[in-house]
């Protein structure tokens, strides 16, 4: 029976060596091309190669796709592909009560049970069946080997394509086209015809297997989503940041300089940009994070769009130099792709616990604009905007992303280059005497670039005299400069869009205020509750410092303000302090994103009591 459904959540899980990330990625891509809205969440072990077959070694890729709006990688899972016992152990808990398990039973033998830390006598799949799950048992390894028995490949090589069997099968199950993946394989194995043949064959075998064998009672169709007209692509967060930076540089007619030191989950920005040299991007892998931001400060002084990125521990190291950039009033974008903290913490997990550090974590009075991206595709706009603010307001800007956004992906209606707004550097006027710390109406100083005769000037981290920038220890001047720098940053609030309610009523009982990657979960929860007639709205803050001018008005339009965060309560502190509103925190600190249901439950709890 073919059943049309609005959306589905599929989780591909197996050993790190089983190629689940690639499988998931292919499935997303095909679904995107198919016209679904979607959202993905890769979840892999911290180890490079965790021990085979263990729970710690499980790698998962979750995808939520639909004909309706999709904002999260989904809550509970409809279909779990478990390539081995450990994968089931790890993810069974995430299945819907009547969810389906597609199990590679060759991965459930005694050895695998032992590796998964279980008693060898367990029959996991019967147990799952007894627990009400729909279990489909397939000898995927064996079937793959059979398909390839004449391929001339070694067993080890044959086994490597068993993920294609899975992919083909799930394509069949959800009525997807296999052509995009066939094309992909062609490209990937251009120079390895035997592997191309094998993978293609196994992909098709999996597909046909679904068609032939009557293991499945249903087949599902998820129609195209009615997305706004336009051109779309699939995009991951870090990639979108890289593209946003390149675009901003182009639109400001500046050269892009990126300095980074590898760190999870920010490294991909470096990788991405290192590969864009033909866009005039100069990327620099520095000896450490301090050198990276140092080099960026130098590049900014040179007249470039300078960017550096890191994650928690690396951002901590950049603090001192960030204070210098603030004092110099020079454009600089600092990206923090947050991960589980504190200290080394949970490097491969997501968290939002660096907000207070971003806002307050410097010596002296050093307010720096902070903006946050809320989803993979949003990274483009936010990266572009961070550059705009940095360049037009002559200030460092902190951009907050997180591991969930960085590695997740979703379809993105990308803009035309010509539709992107120009960015206007505040250059010093040629042939005029130059006072480096003279300011315009927005309190922004002008930018003189080395090479401009007559504009030679010196600047530094010591307090400087108003207008001239000479060193000054004058008490009144210091106070004036501290207040002026603060006023300049606050002034940015007048040059950003007003805050809007994302969904739900303009006034009502509960306002859920979010920032960053909680966007999808909150939106899903609120839309759902609105359907249930609950008076709840969603406001998502992109501009965390300074806040949009009209933020307070919105907050006061609701009886209760709830602030869900993947930390121990950080934005909530700022809102409480600033508006003296008894905003209520809702915290999750598990290295995992919110499920929309968790937010729904909390709101209902709140409304009850």
């Amino acid at each position, binding site marked *: 029976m073919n059943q049309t459904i609005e959306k589905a959540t599929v989780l591909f899980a197996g050993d790190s060596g089983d190629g689940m990330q690639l499988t998931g990625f292919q499935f997303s891509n095909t679904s995107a091309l198919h016209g679904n809205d979607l959202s993905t969440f890769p979840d892999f072990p911290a180890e490079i190669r965790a021990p085979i077959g263990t729970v710690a070694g499980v790698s998962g890729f979750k995808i939520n796709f639909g004909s309706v709006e999709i904002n999260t990688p989904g809550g509970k899972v409809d279909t779990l592909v478990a390539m081995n016992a450990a994968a089931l152990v790890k993810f069974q808990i995430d299945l819907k009560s009547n969810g389906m398990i597609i199990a590679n039973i060759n991965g459930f033998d005694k050895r695998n049970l032992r590796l998964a830390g279980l008693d060898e006598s367990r029959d996991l799949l019967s147990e799952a069946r007894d627990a009400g799950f729909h279990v489909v048992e397939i000898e995927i390894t064996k079937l793959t080997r059979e398909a390839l028995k004449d391929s001339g490949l070694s067993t080890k090589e044959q086994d490597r394509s068993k993920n294609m069997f899975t992919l083909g099968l799930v394509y069949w199950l959800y009525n997807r086209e296999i052509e995009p993946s066939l094309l992909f394989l062609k490209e990937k194995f251009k120079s390895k015809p035997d592997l191309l043949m094998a993978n293609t064959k196994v992909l098709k075998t999996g597909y046909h297997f679904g068609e032939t064998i009557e293991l499945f009672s249903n087949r599902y169709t998820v129609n195209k989503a009615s997305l706004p007209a336009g051109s779309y692509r699939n995009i991951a967060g870090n990639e979108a940041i890289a593209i946003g930076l390149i675009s901003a540089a182009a639109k400001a007619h500046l050269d892009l300089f990126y300095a980074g030191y590898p760190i999870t989950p920010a490294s991909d920005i470096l990788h991405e940009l290192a590969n864009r*040299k033909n866009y005039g991007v100069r990327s620099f892998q520095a*000896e450490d994070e301090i*050198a990276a931001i140092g080099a960026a400060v130098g*590049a900014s002084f040179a007249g470039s769009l300078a960017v550096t990125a890191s994650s928690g521990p690396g951002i901590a190291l950049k603090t001192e130099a960030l204070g*210098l950039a603030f004092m110099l009033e020079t454009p600089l974008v600092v990206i923090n792709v947050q991960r589980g903290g504190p200290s080394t913490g949970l490097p491969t997990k997501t968290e939002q616990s660096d907000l207070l550090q971003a806002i307050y974590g410097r010596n002296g009075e050093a307010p720096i604009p902070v903006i946050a991206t809320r989803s993979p595709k949003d990274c483009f706009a936010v990266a572009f905007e961070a550059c705009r603010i940095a360049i037009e307001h002559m200030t460092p800007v902190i951009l907050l992303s997180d591991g969930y956004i960085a590695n997740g992906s979703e379809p993105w209606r990308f803009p035309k280059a010509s539709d992107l707004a120009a960015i206007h550097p505040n250059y010093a006027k040629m042939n005029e005497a130059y006072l480096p710390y003279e300011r315009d109406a927005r309190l922004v100083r002008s930018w003189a670039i*080395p090479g401009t005769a007559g504009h030679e000037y010196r600047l530094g981290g010591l307090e400087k005299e108003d207008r001239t920038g000479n*060193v000054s220890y004058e008490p009144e001047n210091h106070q004036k400069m501290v207040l002026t720098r603060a006023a300049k940053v606050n002034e940015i609030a007048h040059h950003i869009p007003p805050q809007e309610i994302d969904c739900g009523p303009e006034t009502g009982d509960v306002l859920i205020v979010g920032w960053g990657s909680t966007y999808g979960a909150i939106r899903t929860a609120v839309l759902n509750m609105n359907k249930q007639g609950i008076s709840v709205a969603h406001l998502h803050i992109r501009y965390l410092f300074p806040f949009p001018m009209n933020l307070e008005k919105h907050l006061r339009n609701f009886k209760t303000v709830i602030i869900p965060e993947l930390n121990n309560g950080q934005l909530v502190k700022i809102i409480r302090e600033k508006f003296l509103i008894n905003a209520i925190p809702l915290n999750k600190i598990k290295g995992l994103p919110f499920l929309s249901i968790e937010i729904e439950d909390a709101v209902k709890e709140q409304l009850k009591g």
Partner: protein
Amino acid sequence: MEIADLLKPKDFATDQDVRWCPGCGDYSILKQVQSIMPDLGVPRENIVFISGIGCSSRFPYYMNTFGMHSIHGRAAAIASGLKMMRKDLSVWIITGDGDSLSIGGNHLIHLLRRNLNVNILLFNNEIYGLTKGQFSPTSELGKTTKSSPWGTIDHPFNPAALALGADASFFARGLDLDTKGLRDILLRAHAHKGTSLVEIYQNCNVFNDGAFAPYSNKSTRQRSTLLLEEGKPLLYGEDANKEALYIKDMKVYSAPLESIDAEDLWIHDSKDAMKAHLLSRLFDPYTEDSLPRPFGVFYQEDRLVYEEEMDKQLHTSIQSKGIGDLDSLLQGRNHWTI
């Protein structure tokens, strides 16, 4: 537009009061630097001085060029970013022994190995001046300072050896008071393509007065200093013409000039890495019969220059992929239209 060679040294002075202690060696270095500027043939606006923090690091305020007085130890990193984006600029790093060898040691050695075409002037006064007199990584063992009232137990760095160990492509040593020697070194540092590290012995007359007296005092100077001149034998002593150095079994000895066969003389060749290494190890504390301390250009090597290689990759990439088109970047490999 100003033409560099019409400028005078004083055109490189700013209107700011120079705030070093009277008698500080920094003055004479400033003077020499200002005096060579017109000779570089670089327009003033294309010159940038980047410093860290320390007495010496106030230097940029006194140079009427572009400049930045940055934070402690990071000038090398900042200058690296600057130079990567702007090959056209003449970039000078001003740093102290604490700034570059203590907190900034890592950036220094990485800059040296990467070999960007910048000049580092390391003002070595063997003390922390600005923070009022603690020992530095170059202070001699046993030195009594505020933070080492019982004498230091820290074996000091040998900056030349450290730099060569980090594959520096240019190392020279100068002395604040030796204006002529300094001038030559500065010009050669500028001319060198790659990172030039110039260590300058600088007297801090307040916290470490006389640290370099053996090399500047009339009475000891000839005995204790060795001026390195390209292609010339290593001579010192009275009129720099009395004692000669020679190498035997990879060890250095000195003897009266007349007692040595001409072919055994050590002829200075700044391209010879092994000899530069030997020079770097002429580092014993001054005593009546110690070997002299070398001044001048120890070593100079032509090696790939970082920012040029960076540019080359950019161009190769453009040649092979074409200049990046923003729209194609935005749309990526796979896209679809609704």
